[in-house]
């Protein structure tokens, strides 16, 4: 028996296993080199064909409804068909009443699937990209997830439907505020989404203190100029320092320096100085002089004139600090103004002013760069039973009339069509004084990083910026560390594809910023 075993292939079983084990280990060890980058499939983009015939109708809403009629007539959908919209629970009030109206008008059954945590929406979306269950037909997600969703092959390119149905997003009297029309929908030059929100930051301050004659005199004595709302970041820093009164329980400012939005204040200064996140080759430019100076200024501001929870808290801190009157000024989303004017949530009702975000002077021209932070856009699942019907819904929802009603209701979606800024309904919802400020800020809004892997780029940036704000790192080092991490992400995801996306993304910035970049010769095109 033993001989028989030994003779079998002239190896004992132990010898064979040993040899096989060594071979396998050797094979595996030889693959310890950095992981290769896979060749991505092209995001779902229909082949260019003949010009798409326009659908009849006087308004975007009418065209959307006509589209549904045509789809029904063609037998592509029928009454009672169900479509599911994944969205955040904060948008319930905006969306659910509109769904009821849409279902009544179309006979379809659009239903809402709410999710309470924003981060969970991303997880669900990515799960759907992998599992392809078709559980959701429409996604209402952060604007800067569009790239991930498109590259994962989950969402459809809407460009042809935009031509067919004309949602009046980028032209005409009902257009969105530019450049919000671009960066809430475009990825690599194609329309993969439709913006449904405006998350441009605004700065809110204590108007009562500004209007106090004693304060005005003291300010003038100290700085030799009138006490006015600051226009540049330099003036802003003096203004904040002047009103910083820790002994009276009021700090100068609340700006985010925490784990999730630490980039906002830094980016506003960096970009208004003429900085850009990347160069033509996707090499980070954040360690430039503009980047380091901007961060040094922000670190000084936060460490000297803000409560510590600017660094350790979360987004909600602005919504407690400012309305309770413990900071002189704060910046956040448009809703902060509402909170500060609501007697239920505020101790400073009637004392609130809003202002344009300051900027930087360049040869006599003031360049403002206002962060558009997060924002929500509609996109459509490739696995939906009728993506075109879904498109009709989102065009109808974002339409000039329907959208006006939906957005005026209390919820986390904010005003985005320019014509709405004159509507009484919106003036009532936001306050007539605030709307011109928000409009001006919106025109200077720049997007979050919206490349593929945006979450990771921003998280790594926030991580190092927060360390700088907490005093754990020098500003220069923090930016260098972030830049190193960004290089790794770019290489992992494929530099060429990212270069193309960044080349297109730059075009979504406000024109004055693009002009400044051209003047500085930052990019070749």
């Amino acid at each position, binding site marked *: 028996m033993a001989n028989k075993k030994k003779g079998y292939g002239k190896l004992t079983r132990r010898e064979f296993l040993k040899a096989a084990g060594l071979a396998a280990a050797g094979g595996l060890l030889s*693959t310890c080199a950095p*992981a290769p980058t896979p060749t991505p499939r092209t995001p779902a983009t229909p082949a260019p064909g003949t010009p798409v015939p326009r659908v009849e109708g006087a308004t975007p809403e009418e065209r959307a409804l006509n589209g549904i009629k045509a789809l029904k007539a063609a037998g592509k959908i029928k009454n009672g068909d169900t479509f599911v919209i994944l969205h955040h629970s904060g948008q319930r009030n905006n969306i659910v009443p509109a769904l009821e109206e849409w279902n009544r008008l179309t006979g379809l059954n659009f239903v809402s699937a709410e999710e309470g945590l924003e981060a969970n929406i991303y997880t669900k979306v990515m799960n759907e990209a992998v599992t392809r269950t078709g559980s959701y037909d429409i996604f209402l997600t952060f604007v800067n997830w569009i790239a991930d969703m498109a590259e994962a092959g989950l969402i459809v390119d809407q460009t042809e439907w935009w031509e067919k149905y004309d949602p009046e997003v980028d032209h005409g009297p009902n257009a969105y505020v530019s450049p919000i029309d671009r960066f809430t929908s475009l990825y690599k030059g194609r329309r993969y989404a439709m913006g449904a929100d405006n998350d441009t930051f605004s700065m809110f301050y204590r108007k009562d203190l500004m209007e106090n004659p004693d304060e005005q005199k003291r300010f003038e004595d100290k700085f030799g100029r009138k006490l006015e709302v600051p226009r540049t970041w330099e003036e802003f820093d003096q203004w904040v320092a002047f009103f910083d009164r820790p002994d009276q329980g009021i700090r100068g400012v609340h700006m985010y320096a925490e784990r999730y939005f630490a980039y906002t204040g830094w980016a506003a200064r960096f970009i208004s100085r003429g900085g850009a996140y990347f160069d033509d080759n996707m090499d980070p430019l954040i360690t430039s002089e503009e980047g380091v100076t901007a961060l040094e200024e922000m670190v000084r501001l936060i460490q000297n004139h803000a409560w510590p929870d600017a*660094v350790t808290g979360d987004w909600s801190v602005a919504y407690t600090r400012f309305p309770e009157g413990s900071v002189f000024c704060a910046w956040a989303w448009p809703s902060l103004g509402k909170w500060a004017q609501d007697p239920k949530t505020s101790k400073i009702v009637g004392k609130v002013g809003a202002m344009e975000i300051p900027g930087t002077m360049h040869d006599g021209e003031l360049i403002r760069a206002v962060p558009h932070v997060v924002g929500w856009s509609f996109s459509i699942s490739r696995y939906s039973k009728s993506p075109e019907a879904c498109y009709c819904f989102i065009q109808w929802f974002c339409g000039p009339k329907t959208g006006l009603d939906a957005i005026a209701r209390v919820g986390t979606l904010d005003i985005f069509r320019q014509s709405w800024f004159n509507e009484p309904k919106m003036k009532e919802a936001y306050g007539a004084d605030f709307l011109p400020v928000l409009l001006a800020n919106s025109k200077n809004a720049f997007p979050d990083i919206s490349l593929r*892997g945006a*979450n990771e780029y921003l998280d790594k940036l926030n991580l190092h910026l927060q360390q700088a704000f907490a005093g754990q790192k020098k500003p220069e080092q923090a930016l260098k560390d972030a830049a190193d991490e960004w290089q790794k992400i770019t290489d992992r995801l494929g530099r060429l594809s990212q270069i193309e996306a960044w080349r297109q993304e730059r075009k979504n910035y406000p024109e004055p910023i693009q002009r400044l970049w051209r003047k500085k010769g930052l990019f070749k095109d």
Partner: protein
Amino acid sequence: MHFPVRWSPEWNEERWMGQLLILPMQLLIWFVLIVPMLIVIYLSLVSWQPIMGVDWWQAPFAGLSNYVQALQDQRFLTALGRTMGLVLVAVSLEFLLGLALALFFHQEEFPGKRIVASILLYPMMLPWVVVGLCFYLLFLDKGPVNYILISLFGPDASVQWYQNPLLALMTIALADIWQWTPFMFLVIYSGLGALPPEPVEAAMTLGASRWEIFRYIVFPMLKPVMLIALIIRALEAFKIFDLVYIMTGGGPGTSTESLSLYLYRTGFIYGQLSYAAAMALLVLILIALVARLAVRPLEREL
């Protein structure tokens, strides 16, 4: 190809029927345990993110590079060390406090003892999220803890709990200790109640002191119970996520980031599922080794 089951006379109809009946459960176990595990192993050996635009089964083979990257990843190693440190400190204190409480309740009689013992168990029944939120609020800059400190020692006594990495970690450890000391108490108290009284009575008759009784009689008899409590608690604490996520988000920077939080971020925020799978498997191997070492004395006892 080998057929796993050889026909023999013993394989009668009854036995076939038995096999057939357990087959659905076998398949279910394969499906929920083995298949996901195999997928995780597969993912760890390829380079894949959903946003790369290729399907996971088409991802290029990456060999051990994800593992190598993890072993060179300072953030991963630091999170691992930090989590182990947190487990060591928190679980040790939970054990000592639980033991002290259990001995006290075992030896002393006082009115309302049962009610107090029941109340002591409540923290353990609360969801992690609730505990995290309560402790987060307690240690806010304007929270009750700072309020008490300022009332007692003046305005300069206010502490920035979440800005200092060590203090932030301490608040997390405190929350964990508060919640899980009752578990130690419960297990050890039950163990004490189950000990035979005779050895203790004999020792008392022979004039042994309380310490001697504990050291030479109670402790050795209680050791298996204590070891089990320590192992269960340590394994559970190693996975700490909710408290860190809610109280500090892992910050400032990554200075309180636990291993689970880092894995979550890598897998679900950055979408690096392959890399997260490799790290998770490394952690699994580590935990399995530690658990094996921890169980060894228990095996000797039994």
